[in-house]
């Protein structure tokens, strides 16, 4: 079955929130998944992998506030980013990549032990877009990990390699387009997403943790009872 991209965005925002991410990160996670789907990559599968990695049982009741997601946040030392206490979150580091466009120079920034690295690509695309729009000398961004390479100028992109759930080392490198070096075989664009039934169901299970359990009080007051609605 195919889903609209707005459905993908709405569901993945809630699913991301369910593992303890603040709403601001959840929103950009959803944009990242949507963008992957637009580019023909199964973003729902990527996010499902990620969410299962940071929370093994989606049915677990756990308060957002006690989330240990913070341990996957990047600690930046020079050009090396790593999570102090575990594997690196592609959302917390991806948003930081996009935010820090102004400090990215021509050298490679290395991200260590990244979960679901595909989620980084959207943020690296924003980085390239920023560099293009601000007359920055660097016009493309290359993202590499073992067996995979992604190149973008912020508008078009090309990928080579296979879908990985994990990368030991990701290198993000802004650079100039070399003579004749336009991006080869850009990705086709899609306006629908076709996740697997399993991934869609799993994302729904994650998302449902953001819904308040129904109570009679809520049914009556939460939506407003008031006067008769059948007259």
């Amino acid at each position, binding site marked *: *079955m*195919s*889903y*609209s*991209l*707005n*459905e993908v965005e709405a569901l993945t925002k809630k699913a991301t929130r369910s593992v303890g*991410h*603040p*709403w*601001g*990160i959840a*929103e*950009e996670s959803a*944009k990242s998944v949507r963008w992957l789907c637009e580019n023909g990559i199964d973003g729902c599968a990527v996010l499902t992998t990620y969410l299962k990695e940071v929370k093994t049982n989606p049915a677990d009741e756990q*308060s*957002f*506030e006690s989330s240990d997601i913070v341990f996957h*946040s*990047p600690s*930046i030392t020079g050009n090396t980013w790593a999570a102090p206490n575990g594997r690196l979150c592609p959302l*917390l580091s991806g*948003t*930081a990549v*996009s*935010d*820090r*466009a*102004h*400090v990215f120079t021509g050298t490679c920034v290395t991200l260590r032990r990244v979960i679901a690295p595909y989620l980084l690509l959207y943020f690296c695309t*924003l980085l390239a*877009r*920023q560099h293009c729009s601000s007359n920055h000398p660097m016009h493309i961004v290359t993202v590499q990990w073992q067996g995979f390479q992604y190149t973008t100028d912020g508008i078009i992109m090309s990928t080579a390699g296979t879908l990985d759930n994990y990368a030991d080392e990701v290198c993000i490198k802004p650079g100039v387009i070399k003579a004749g070096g336009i991006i080869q075989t850009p990705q086709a664009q899609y*306006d*629908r997403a076709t996740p697997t039934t399993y991934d869609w169901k799993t994302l729904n299970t994650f998302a*449902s943790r*953001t*819904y*308040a*359990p*129904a*109570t009679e*009080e*809520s*049914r009556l*007051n*939460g*939506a*407003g*009872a*008031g*006067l008769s*609605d*059948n*007259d």
Partner: protein
Amino acid sequence: MTVQRREPATVMRLKRLGSLHQCRLSFMRILTRRMAREQWKFERLDFAINKEGCGHAVYTAQGPDRTYSLIAFAHNLPERSRSDRVIAEAWDCTFALFDGVPTNDDIERLAANVPLQEAGRISESELTLSRANKSVRLWKHVIEALSQGRQPDVEQIESVGYLMRTTAVYGSGKFGAKDREMIANRAETQAPFQAEMLTVFLIRSFVLDLAQHCANALGGEHTAELCPAIARKLGIGNSTGLGMAPFIVNHPVLFNNWLMAREEAIARVRSLPNATHTDTEFFLTLLERTALLVSNWHSKHPLQQQKLSRLKADMEALQLFTLKESLRENQPWHRLLNWSEQSLTEEGQELLASLILEPYPDLVDGLEHCMADSYSGSFRIDGSMLIGQVRKLLQRDFEWALSLDWSAPECCARAWYVSEEKQEPRLGERFEEAIAEYEQPLAPARDASNAYKALAAYHQDQPISDFLLAHPQHRKSIRRAQLTEHAPYGEIRDNTISSTLMPIDMLRAKLSFFGATNFDPRSDRWLRICMYTGAPYPQELSTSNADHWVYPELGSIAS
């Protein structure tokens, strides 16, 4: 002297937003004007409804480039199952707006899904999904009267206003429909909610046919045809609940664009040095017609009743003022609005602010192209922005909120959450129900205040990226502050989780831009409205009746 747009600090208060009225820029009027201008063709392609009023029908609307089709399903709904609430599971009629002309296979596919509404699936061939319930009392009266060869009682028609009311019109990718982004570049759907407004326009036509069909089935050859002038008085009702409130918070740039377009229109008209005799006369005629509109506006809600009785007093004061004062020279509209700000309630002020736009299509109507938000998807936080600048942005919209004690129970009494059973937004009592953990981010003022406090620990010359890395919980507020940097009307200047919040104010703000009338709150969190009351039906639509139908004709059938 050029008059500036009104200050966001004045416009964006909830009490005022809850008093907004339709205007030339309302989405229904944008649609009817366009369809008349472009001479759209309308056809009833299929009407396979049996004597019991069950079956399906197809109505097409053909514009210069594309055709859209309403597919309507009529059901036999047991009395006990009828509810407008989102928790309902069956409806009198269900609808989809198809992008093109449906094949039999499409109709078969939709027949298996559309009646299920949220529990079904539609596809990228559909633009909207909707449903409607009968107004039991008026439906019964109209069918009975017609079947007995009589016209229905106009007073009863005016007191209800519609034969059916929709309880949701879902668009933009919901339940599998085509995304808004896919139609945003079409001329006819560039302005907001045009597919939804077209759906309701065609539903109104179907409902009229269905009523006549049911009356014919009952009365046979003795049945009367509903008189066209009475038919015009029938709009389509709509029951609207809390689902709409989060929309205006979640789309600050879009909401800004609506408000800014209207404020710009008001400022342009206020700036006019003079008004011609024709313009003034036109305004005064519409003022009279508005008085009729106000007198037909009924509500059982004490708060709205109070607002209405004051509005009626406002109308009298306004008519007196226009008798005494010339509206020809010395910036007449500016003088009039200045007077209203001192003399009328917010209901009256906003009604008048909308009304002065009417004589000036050339100044106003072009602004309809500025009401969409075309760039929402691609926004990126500028991490290089200095913290001092971010603080200024937060101060601009939330100065009033920074000094509030957000931990005080009255300031954060409520929390917005999504219910498990229907995944719909609800509003609860934070200190009485176990909902805080599920809170939706719908209190931008509180969140901005908290971000502002946390920023105090940082130097103003540091880039915001440093702050965001350490405080991802404030990311949403910072993103919002940057997103609305050029959207001064993007933020509501009131507390959306206060113990005194009236959610219907948020609903009305949105509905007024649709062009709704007869706001009738049924509690503090849901209301009924009318759409297309007085509008021409598809076959009657022309450039002479496409625009001012919202104002009842003077001397039309007396009630």
